[in-house]
């Protein structure tokens, strides 16, 4: 187990390095170098000032030294200053938005797990029935649904037609200060229903479908037939024997679905006006705020990397073949 963790950590380091190299490569994609957005459209930019900027950012040095300096900055969470009007340090901007995105994505992940497991079991034990076919049909919709359109539809139904739910922001603006704690929680909940619905819809479809298929397969295994022959109640067979084994690949899937989940933040945060990393990314792209874009890209990739590492650890803990260090 210990060796396994060390090995995973080493691979993680290599992957982290790769992420920084690719990001650095994108940074130099801009024709005319990373400074061109700052200089090309600026009428006040004189050649002398350009030279000064190039010296200041160290762009006259060889590429590998530039990369090294850039990497050192990142490790100290120094992503430079934003190109936008406020010119604040990028990390400050990210710091205040990170909790929002983490909160929503953790809630979404939790909801996906809580909802898709019973759904998947429900469908798997009825494999082949009309209910199961209907379920399969619905999950296909979950895959094919454009999340931004789903968001629009929710806004139209709950916000405009029924006027039941707020469709923008994390909490009310007017009168928020005067609310009691419970009212505040209720206010947040109402604001989060639509974004969370969008964030979880595809995930629930994917997860429950995968679990259904995995469980159907496990239920055909010999040890299940044996358990049935022993006369164990069906409930025990499904929940104690089959589900545990069917859930094992889910842990890996959970890790793999993280990039999609975090990527979805861009869409629902932008549409619902939620001040998180996704919205920041969108604003930065629209405003060509390159330091913010880069920092965001690296940060979400590292979040994914960490998530995958945790999923690997979880898998190792859950699977005795790895936990006890047996060769697979």
């Amino acid at each position, binding site marked *: 187990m210990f060796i396994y963790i060390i090995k995973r950590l080493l691979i993680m380091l290599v992957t982290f390095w790769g992420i920084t190299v690719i990001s650095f490569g994108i940074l130099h994609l801009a024709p005319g170098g990373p400074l061109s957005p700052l200089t090309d459209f600026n009428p006040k930019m004189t050649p002398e000032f350009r030279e000064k900027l190039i010296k200041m950012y160290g762009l006259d040095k060889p590429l590998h030294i530039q990369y090294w300096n850039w990497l050192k900055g990142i490790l100290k969470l120094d992503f430079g200053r934003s190109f936008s009007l406020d010119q604040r340090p990028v990390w400050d901007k990210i710091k205040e938005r990170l909790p929002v995105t983490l909160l929503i994505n953790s809630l979404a992940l939790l909801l996906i797990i809580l909802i898709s497991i019973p759904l998947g079991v429900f469908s798997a034990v009825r494999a082949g029935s009309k209910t199961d076919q209907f379920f399969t049909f619905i999950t296909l919709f979950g895959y*094919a649904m454009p999340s931004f359109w789903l968001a629009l539809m929710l806004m139209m139904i709950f916000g405009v037609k029924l006027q039941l739910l707020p469709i923008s922001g994390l909490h009310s603006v007017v009168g928020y200060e005067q609310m009691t704690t419970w009212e505040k929680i209720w206010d947040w909940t109402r604001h989060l229903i639509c974004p969370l619905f969008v964030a979880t819809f595809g995930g629930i479809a994917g997860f429950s479908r995968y679990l259904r298929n995995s469980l159907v397969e496990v239920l055909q295994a010999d040890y299940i037939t044996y358990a049935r022959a022993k006369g164990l109640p069906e409930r025990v067979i499904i929940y104690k024997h089959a589900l545990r084994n069917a859930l094992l690949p889910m842990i890996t899937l959970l890790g793999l679905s993280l990039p999609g989940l975090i990527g979805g933040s861009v869409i629902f945060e932008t549409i619902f006006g939620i001040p998180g990393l996704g919205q920041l990314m969108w604003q930065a792209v629209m405003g060509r705020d390159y330091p913010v874009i880069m920092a965001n*890209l690296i940060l979400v990739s590292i979040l994914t990397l960490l998530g995958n590492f945790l999923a690997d650890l979880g898998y190792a803990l859950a699977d005795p073949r790895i936990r006890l260090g047996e060769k697979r």
Partner: protein
Amino acid sequence: MLRRIVETKQGLFSLVILMTLLFIALFGPSFYPYHPNEINVHAILQGPSLKHPLGTDLLGRDLLSRMIYGARISLQVSVVAVGISLVIGIVLGTLAGYLGGLVDQIISRLIDIMLCFPTIFLILAVIAYLEPSIINIMIVIGLTSWMGVARLIRAEFLTLKEREFVLAAKIYGASTFRIIFRHILPNALPPVLVSASLGMGQAILIESALSFLGIGVQPPTPSWGNLLIEGKETLEIAWWLSIFPGLAILLTVLAFLLLGETLQDVLNPRRR
């Protein structure tokens, strides 16, 4: 194989939808009376009617004609993007699977690294540096979606290269080139068909999401995604502008998905 696909209900459904869509995209503009960018101040924000089957937008442009044109864009983007991802995926997967060793190590790590980037973030970052033109979007989607194909091909090569018929070809004196392209690759391709079909749907979803966010296909060129921008602005007064383009995306992606599922069943007798 085509017959087997049509035999299943979902396969038939998906093929009918996709063929209709292809037909509309290719020939629709020559049959349909309105030009997608034709502004008509006398027909602003009209609901669906006989004259304008899907209604008109803020500038009195006919929604159906814009969606027909949008179908062209969406199909173009997805075909080219998937084409690029297939080429990269097949080349890298072949190299990794056939050569093995250090090459395999490097390519496999590269795949892991690429998979760590949330696709939307990666595409946004690249688009921010380039111009958000249709060509760039095709390329960027292609460059960020080849990993699945590469893994598939690699896995197929790993098993296929140990098989007897490859050994026989080697003994026979076939060149490496011939073994790869003539003997192994054709056998490794069927599962790639499935992932290509799923990839087409994905590409359409990504393109429309980007266009909706204002970072993809730029107005006045209509795409299903950027039509919905107007839909969002007029959510309270013109429901048709946000319903129909979204339905078009949903239906198309669903069709590609079902086609992929059907292919999987047809190609894998165990699942039938």
